[in-house]
């Protein structure tokens, strides 16, 4: 197999101890470009080891994403890259025992990491990007790595993907790039594009459950939620990616025990970002 590019996704689980690496090989130049643009901070030179995941062209039959565990097909390149992201996330989860790999966003803030778990469409990317633009370094968007045992969030350096509505709300100019043809109406942002950076591993200090509600009138509201509600929502997002064992469940319960827990009900993302930023950066402006 000829690989046009190899991308290694590495989670630094501990200083000097190394972490899990998933190598991705792509046969198609356009797909290689897509993956390397989407994950620029993980790119490494091609190595001699075979990749764990392969995205390949099947000609008129579309594309395939192949791992040791599964072999999935997709009709278009954009769907194939999306599929690759899903499989990659599952492979990372399998490579990182003791970690929760969950759907969510996270930023660094005063006192530690703020986790925003939620399914697609919950508004977490817009909130994370907005917070990054207000000085919070990013830990991840869409995929977040949580060391359950220690309650520490690690950066997962995938670019933030925002649709044009979100960039309008955040007053960030949409970007044209090589992937604009793959995802029309979406732009990719590196933290530095937002005036921010990747955050170092940070202890979990707050969990914000996003509740975008078009019927909500008035200002956004931040309301405390119970630990049970927070644990349930976090694990529901982990369960989209991997199976959870009893130990992971108990560790998650412990991890959120000392965190601030709240739901954010809002209609307008820009005002929700303002409220969150004022709350999260309040102690040490």
């Amino acid at each position, binding site marked *: 197999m000829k690989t046009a590019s190899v991308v290694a996704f590495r989670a630094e689980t501990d200083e000097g101890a190394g972490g899990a690496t998933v190598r991705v090989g792509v046969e198609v130049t356009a797909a290689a470009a897509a993956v390397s643009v989407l994950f620029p901070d993980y790119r490494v030179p091609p190595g001699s080891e075979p990749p764990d995941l392969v995205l390949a062209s099947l000609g008129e039959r579309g594309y395939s994403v192949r791992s040791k565990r599964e072999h999935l097909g997709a009709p278009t390149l954009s769907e194939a890259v999306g599929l690759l992201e899903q499989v990659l996330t599952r492979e990372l989860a399998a490579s990182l025992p003791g970690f929760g790999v969950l759907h969510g966003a996270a930023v660094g803030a005063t006192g530690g990491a703020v986790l925003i778990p939620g399914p697609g469409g919950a508004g977490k990317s817009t909130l994370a990007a907005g917070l990054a633009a207000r000085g919070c370094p990013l830990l991840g968007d869409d995929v977040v790595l949580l060391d359950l045992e220690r309650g520490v969030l690690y950066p997962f350096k995938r670019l933030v993907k925002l649709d044009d509505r979100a960039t309008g709300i955040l007053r960030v100019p949409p970007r044209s790039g090589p992937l604009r043809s793959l995802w029309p109406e979406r732009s990719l942002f590196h933290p530095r594009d937002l005036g921010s950076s990747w955050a170092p591993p940070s202890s979990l200090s707050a969990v914000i459950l996003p509740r975008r509600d078009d019927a909500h009138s008035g200002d956004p509201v931040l309301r405390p939620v119970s630990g049970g509600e927070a644990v349930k929502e976090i694990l529901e997002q982990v369960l989209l990616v991997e199976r959870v*064992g009893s130990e992971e469940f108990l560790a998650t319960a412990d991890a959120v025990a000392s965190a601030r827990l709240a739901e954010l009900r809002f209609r307008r993302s820009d005002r929700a970002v303002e409220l969150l930023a004022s709350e999260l950066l309040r102690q040490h402006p």
Partner: protein
Amino acid sequence: MEATEARHRPHARDDVVFRRVDEDWLLFDPVAQEIHVLNLSAALTWSFCDGRRTEAEIAREVARAFEAPPEVGPDEGGEPDPRGPREPPPEVRVREILRRFRAAGLLEGSSA
């Protein structure tokens, strides 16, 4: 049917994890990969599902925990409660909770 169920001795599955988090009680089912948030009645009911107590005994334990007064409804000579309908009596609540536990496959011998 209800009389038969009342003689059953519900037994919580050993692998289901019960954990208090803040003011909530959670059950985690590692097989179904489901998390259930319980209210106080359900949490108490779960804690008594030891395979030794019958449903009726569990209902009595739950009622005792709440220190529930004897139920006397309008049909038994009592006046209608001006505060509106009462909570169902403990045995009814416990029966419904156990039905839900069974439906979720959380008890030995039940299947989701």
